[in-house]
């Protein structure tokens, strides 16, 4: 094998590190997106027996947004194996205990249960906020686009900007705002 062919192989199987901002994102739809990168489904060389998955760093997993009233309705079941060991934890409860767990479980459940799944999960690095160790950040060479752009909250706009924003109508002078 010539030197050029060798590095071609090296480049083909190089692991790319991606970063994903999970703030205000649906974790279940994000899981479908992240799974493709983790398993290497986006690569032309993909094969189930080909170890070509990439690494993904997810930041702000504490700021995920569940659709509707899923925080109250979604239940995570766990059984210790002992009689009476079953527990049902609500999503908001689980999230308050570990802010990465909802997204981690979403990604884990989005993949088929085979021997590769746990190794693929090892390539997912979840952080509840934006504090990522620098040695991991140095590896990153790509950013995954968010499913929905994070909207800016009204209280994050300056007072001047809110005032200057075009309005459809003016309140009457004597109208009392709640």
């Amino acid at each position, binding site marked *: *094998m*010539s030197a*050029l062919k060798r590095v071609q192989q*090296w480049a083909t199987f190089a*692991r790319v590190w991606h970063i994903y901002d999970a703030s205000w994102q649906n974790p279940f739809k994000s899981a479908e997106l992240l799974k493709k990168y983790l398993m290497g489904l986006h690569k032309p060389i993909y094969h189930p027996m080909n170890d070509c998955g990439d690494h993904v760093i997810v930041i702000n997993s504490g700021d995920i947004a569940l659709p509707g009233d899923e925080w109250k309705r979604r239940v995570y079941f766990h059984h210790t194996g002992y009689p009476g060991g079953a527990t049902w934890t609500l999503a908001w409860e689980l999230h308050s205990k570990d802010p990465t767990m909802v997204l981690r479980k979403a990604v884990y459940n989005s993949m088929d249960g085979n021997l590769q799944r746990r190794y693929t999960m090892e390539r997912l690095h979840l952080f509840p906020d934006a504090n990522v160790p620098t*040695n991991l950040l*140095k590896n990153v*060479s790509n950013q995954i686009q968010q499913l929905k752009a994070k909207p800016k909250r009204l209280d994050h706009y300056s007072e001047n900007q809110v005032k200057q924003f075009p309005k459809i109508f003016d309140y009457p002078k004597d109208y009392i705002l709640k």
Partner: protein
Amino acid sequence: MSLFKPTFSVLRRCVALNVSIRTSESRSIKRWVAPTLKELYRRREKVGPEPEKPRSSYLEWNYEAEVFAFGKRLGEEFDRDILKKALIQKEYANIQEIKAKETGQNLPTITDNYELIPEGDGIISSYVMTELSKKYPEDIAKAVTNYLTSEEMLSYIASHIGLKDLILTNEFPVANSTLCNTFKAVVAALKQSQNLAQAEKFIHDFVLSQLNGKNVYEIWDPKEPYKYLTRLLHQRGIKEIEPRLCNQSASNTVLACFQVGLYSNRELLGIGWGESVHIAKDTAALDAIQRVYKNYTTQLENK
């Protein structure tokens, strides 16, 4: 094998007996069969494999017919005497002479291939070099010529066209150097039998064809590609090369991959990858060299 003959005859008799019994009442294989076969196998293992013997030691070996068939097989018309001469090693000829002296026979004129070897060597290397120079620049042509005319390659060719059994030599198995020398002598013999053009066709068919399926850039490997490239481009009037780091991934891990592109005047000369920037730069230089040499023949025509 003569050692086992009585055993085998006993066995055969017993088996015959067994068969006759089997037809009458017993359907089983006799208890002694397996231990006997095991014992025979053990003895065979103990004696070890039969030593490799030269093909010429076999009973039906006919040297004259083999030498005749050698040329016909390759589709070449050899002069019988010259071909025979090309197959005789110097050491073999010397020993034959000494033996003849000892026995007091009148000396047969045995000539060896000693003079033919350098002649054949010259024909092979000059023809291969000229043919390769038509397609590749001098450095590559030289390296590939060295590869094709190496002892390893020529002995490989020689053994596969059936020279191994035909060589008259004292050693067995035949050494690579002997095979290589004999191949050279055969080429010289072909030239003497016919002409230089025919010998060159022979080299074309058997030596140059060894390049089939091989990449010359795997055979020719410059030690310092970046320096080589700068020298090469300097000759072509490109003074400045700018290496740029185009891409990198997982740079803080053992699986780090860097992509370096070499640019000159905002034009890409070559691109390469590697586990470090240094390696990537070198492979980019290799790629650039290949791109420069890609249309080498057309450049010659333009001149």
